C-alpha cells in the first residue's frame, strides 16, 4: 500500500501513466461532450413550464456539480503537501485553483442566463446557492492571488495548501450561514421553487451524460495542466530532457 502511495507521488510515474490514459479519457470526453451538448441544446424537448430554458440547465447543473469538487480536492492535496511534502499534490493543487474559479464563474454565468429568463432577474440575493457560489468563486480567486503573490515556490505551495484547507472549511460554513441568512432575512422567495420538479427522464439522462462529460473535461484539463507543470519543474532531470529531445 505504501509503495503505491510513494509511486503516486513521483511526477515521473504520473507523467508516464497519464500518457497512456490521456488519449482514452480525452476521446471519451469528446464523444460525451458532443453527444451531451448536441442533445441538450438541439434536441431536448421543451419543458411544459420552462420551455427551452431547461437546455441551459443541463450544462449549468453539470458545471455546478463539478465546481463543488474543487475545494475538497484542493484541501486533500493541501493536506498531502503539508504532511508528506509530495510534489505532485502541489502541482495538481496549483492548477486546480484557477480551473475551479473558471468552473464557478461558468456556473454563475449559466445560472444567471437561466435566471434572466425564468426569474426575470440576472441576480437574486435571496437565493442561497447563488450567494454561496459567489463566495466560493472569491475564495478560489484568493488562493490564486496568494499563489501568484509568493515567489518562492516551496513557500507558496505550503501557504496555498493551508489556505485551501481553511477555505474548504470556510466554504461549508459560508454555505450554511448563507442559507440561514436567507431563511431568516427575507420571507421565503417564490423563485427557487419553480425548478426541478417538472423535469422528465429525458432531461435527467441528458444531464447525466453532461455531468460525465464535464467531469471528464475537468480531469483531462487538470491532468494536462499538471503534465505541463511537471515538465517545467523537472526540467533539469534526465527523463524530461530525453522527452524533450525525442519529441
Amino acid at each position, binding site marked *: 500500500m505504501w509503495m503505491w502511495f510513494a509511486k503516486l507521488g513521483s511526477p515521473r510515474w504520473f507523467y508516464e501513466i497519464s500518457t497512456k490514459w490521456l488519449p482514452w479519457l480525452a476521446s471519451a470526453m469528446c464523444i460525451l461532450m458532443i453527444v451531451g451538448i448536441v442533445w441538450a441544446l438541439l434536441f431536448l424537448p421543451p419543458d411544459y413550464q420552462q420551455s427551452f430554458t431547461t437546455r441551459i440547465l443541463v450544462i449549468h447543473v453539470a458545471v455546478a456539480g463539478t465546481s463543488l469538487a474543487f475545494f475538497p480536492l484542493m484541501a486533500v492535496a493541501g493536506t498531502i503537501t503539508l504532511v508528506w511534502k509530495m510534489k505532485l499534490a502541489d502541482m495538481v493543487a496549483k492548477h486546480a485553483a484557477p480551473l475551479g474559479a473558471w468552473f464557478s464563474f461558468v456556473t454563475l454565468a449559466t445560472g444567471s442566463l437561466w435566471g434572466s429568463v425564468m426569474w426575470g432577474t440576472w441576480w437574486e440575493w435571496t437565493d442561497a446557492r447563488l450567494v454561496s457560489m459567489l463566495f466560493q468563486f472569491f475564495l478560489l480567486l484568493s488562493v490564486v492571488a496568494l499563489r501568484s503573490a509568493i515567489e518562492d515556490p516551496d*513557500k507558496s505551495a505550503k501557504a496555498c495548501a493551508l489556505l485551501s484547507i481553511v477555505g474548504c472549511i470556510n466554504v461549508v460554513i459560508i454555505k450554511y*450561514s448563507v442559507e440561514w441568512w436567507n431563511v431568516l432575512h427575507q420571507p421565503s422567495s417564490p423563485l427557487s421553487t419553480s425548478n426541478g420538479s417538472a423535469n422528465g427522464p429525458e432531461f435527467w439522462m441528458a444531464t447525466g451524460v453532461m455531468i460525465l462529460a464535464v467531469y471528464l473535461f475537468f480531469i483531462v484539463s487538470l491532468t494536462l495542466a499538471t503534465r505541463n507543470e511537471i515538465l517545467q519543474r523537472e526540467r533539469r532531470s534526465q527523463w524530461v530532457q530525453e522527452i524533450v529531445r525525442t519529441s
Partner: protein
Amino acid sequence: MDQVTTIEAFTATLKRDLLVAYKRKNDIFNPFMFFLIVCSLFPIGISPDPARLGEIASGVLWISALLASLLAMDSLYRNDFEDGSLEQLLLSPHPLYFLVLAKNMAHWLVSGLPVVIVSPLVAYMLSLPDDAYWVMFLTLLLGTPILSLLGSIGVALTVGLGSRGLILAVITLPMSVPVLIAGTLTVQEALNGASLSGYMAVLGAMFFGSLTLAPLASATALRISVT
C-alpha cells in the same frame, strides 16, 4: 536556568505586545479613527434621513468594524517580522498556539476593543433604534475577536510579502462572511423583537470555534512564512 512555564510565556508575550502598542499610540488610535470616519461617511453618501439610516445602521457598523479590523491586521506581525522577534517566537520551546493566541489577544485589546466601546455612540449617531444598542455592543464584543483571529491567518500567510495590503483583503474578507451574517442578523432580530439566545449561541459557537482552531492555522502559516 529556571524553566519558564507556558502560562508565563503567554503572559509575557501579552504584556510585551501591549507595552509595544502603548509606546506607539498610532496603532491604537488609527483603527478607531478609521471606524468613526467610515461610519460618518455613510449618512453623507446614502441619506441623512434617520429612518433610512436606522435600517442600515447595523450593517454599517459591522462592515466598518470589519474594515477597521482588516486595516489594523497588518501591524499584527509585521514589525515583529522586520525586527526578527517573530523568529525568536517561533524558536521558543513553548507551543506556538499560545504565543499566537497572546499576540492576537493583545492586538484585539488594542485595535478591536476601542471600536467595540465606541460603537454605541456611533449607533446613536446612525439612529439605530434604542432597543438594539446592547445587542449591537454584545455582537461586536463577541464578533470582533473572531475577525481578529481569522484575519491573523491571512496576515500570517502574507507576512513576508512586499505588497500585502490588497492580497490580505482578498483572503480575509470572504472568510468573514459567516461572522458578518451572524452579527447583523442578531441585531436585525433584536429590532424585530425576537428571542436572541439562539443567535448569540451561534456567535458564541463561532467565537469558541475560531478561538480553538484559528491560532493553530495562524501558527502553521507563520512557520511557513518565516523560514
